[in-house]
């Protein structure tokens, strides 16, 4: 069970990394207009 002492801290770091990624995604505007992106494929250029 000693592996827990490595994996649990690792999981904490992983969550923080994921949150960092989400922060980037939000601030680059990826969640701004979800519907339009889905409809874009239906429209001709």
């Amino acid at each position: 069970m000693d592996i827990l002492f490595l994996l649990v801290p690792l999981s904490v770091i992983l969550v923080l990394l994921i949150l960092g990624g989400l922060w980037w995604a939000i601030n680059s505007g990826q969640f701004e207009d979800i519907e339009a992106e889905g409809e874009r494929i239906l429209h001709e250029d």
Partner: protein
Amino acid sequence: MQTIISLESQNLPANTSADVNVWVALDEPSEWTNFSQAHNNKVQEWESRLAIEGMHCAACAINVEKALKAVPGVLSAEVNSTSGRARLVWSAAVAKPSDWMRAVSKAGYRALPAADAFIQDDRRKNQRLMLWRLLVAGFCMMQVMMYAMPSYYASPGEMTVDALNLMRWASWILTLPVLFFSCGPFFSSALNDLKQRQISMDMPVTLGILITFIVSTAVTFEPSGWWGREVYFDSLTMFVFFLLTGRWIELRMRDRTAGSLDALMRRLPSSVERLKSDGNFERVAVRNLNVGDTVRVLPGEAFPADGTITLGTTNADEALLTGESRPVSKVIGSEAIAGSHNLSASVQVRIDKIGQSTRYAQIVALMERVAVDKPRLALLADRIARPFLLAVLFAAIGSAAFLWHTDHSRALMAAVAVLIVTCPCALSLATPAAMLTVSGALARSGVLVRRMQALEALTTIDTIVFDKTGTLTEDRMTIGKITTDVSMSEMQAIQTASAFAQYSLHPASRALVEASKRYPQTELNLEVVNVQEISGSGLTANSIYGHMKLGSAQFCGLDNVLINQLNDDTSKVHLVSEHGWLASFEIVEAIKPDAISAIRALQENNITVEVLSGDRLPSVQRIANMVGIHGVFANCTPQDKLEHIQALQQQGHQVAMVGDGLNDGPVLASAHVSIAMGQAVPLAQAQSDFVVMGGQLAMVPHLIIQAKRTMRIVKQNLIWAAVYNAVCVPLAVVGLLPAWLAGLGMALSSLLVILNAARLSRSVTPVQGAV
């Protein structure tokens, strides 16, 4: 003063020094017209719109209102918590915009002048931050749950103490971002309330979060201490996540509801291409346009101001402004309405009206006024909210005291559940959410709601009184019966007449041309030359029939015998050649195409329909027969109309009046509910509760259906909020409700109210559907 502000700005993140600069810039009177207009045409009195940020519930709206009203020079202030907007009237002699902006900021909120471009940016920043808070809470919650799971399933002794502590510390670390970042809005709002010595719904939530965190932290670092042996990080992160989810969806729904308002308000482009004297175009800001300028509007752009097309033809989308869903064709000389969209081709427009005098600006002003109009039920809910919150605090203390002797930590968590589970928001959101949604939906179909309370009154209406001209009938004329000489067929007569009527703009001429289109276009090819219009009498022209006249009996020289043969008293146009009488055309008022079905829909729902007109009895009777109305009252002066309405009311009827909003203002005002058919009316003058912008009669039964749906949903919401609190609070007080479930319940109860109201934005088709 300046130093005080900068000190405060360290406490309140919303209040930055950039804000202070904006406030000072707003004190410039030239800026005021961007977000204000003169109030009641008084010099020095202004009516301004603000967007307020940081409000979560009705209690917040009251705080902002109080703060605004406390500023000397502010004459009135109304704040709507659902739309996040405020309307205030202030005297420029006493106050400056920076004064009341500062007051809002001091109360812990942030005010922005509405209709200002940076609201959009601010809103986006807000949404991003909110989503980020939600996601932080969500991911941390998932991970904390993982760490909590083993201790739920492991039998005593199965996990080593070290492993257990490791899990708790990891949970503790991941709870920190939730506490310090995600919970930020709860804390800052609760702190503000403390400073102001008042209470709002964030206070109990904050207390709950803090108690849970303190208990769990103490247990983590001192497992065998006084606080017990349980940690509640999973409950904490979970209810924060649920609450934030509720808030986030609420924010999105509010933005969407405010969307129909905003869609209207943001329709004007910020800049437009103006024709320079050398024939080239330059891009200028719309607010720098002047009357008489010529601008080029490209396809896809909105018209920046009311104007006349001077070059090119196109189609325009006027749906939001008139309710007309089909594109309207625009040729040279047509009027373009500010805020309508140019659909097909680039056109040049000469500007006739700008700024606040455009029809668009009047609509926006009306819509904004409605957004802050509070219905009676909402006021009641607002009054209940505060004592309700105090009761919750006492219930939480009572609950903790009641369970204290069994287990400290369990007693504290029961108190937390009480604090979290109660939801005054559902109570205070119930009415405004529904009202705002329905007025947004109605606005999309071309009906402006001017007084929210009228929706409530509309549900009990049993009598509807219609005005005739402009309400049941169109503005234009149409051709009724055609009488001809034996030598001519009806078709020949109307084609001959329209051949020279097409050169005239008189309503009767236009009716003839319109009527001729109903017949097949033959090779008649009648050539007319020398058409002359004798104003007020008729037309003369030369054709194969010789010299011809089209006009009144006197003008055509008809003798009395013939007139008597044609008898009756309807108005007529005659066609004569130099050889004698050829044909007579009856000119009648056209009823609106949807009049018959609309009246029938009303009658089928047991509503008595009457027509009340100042016109002569025969013509009123004729229209009434066509649309199927039995109660006919003609030859009425405005005074008669007023007395008739009042008599009906004295007999105990609930009366709605439908008029054109201009001539029958006092009559409209005296009815329980008034509806104006507003095609031709300056909106600001329309004295009515509702304005049907396109003048469609089908909107009257539609309005009643919508009003009934609205009141049904308001009642459902209020009952739900009451039942929810009545069931959950006692459960939490006796300690049967875990904190996470309390958070879920609270978020869901608010959401349910909002979602229920959102059903109203799905519009039913006019006329059809049960009332």
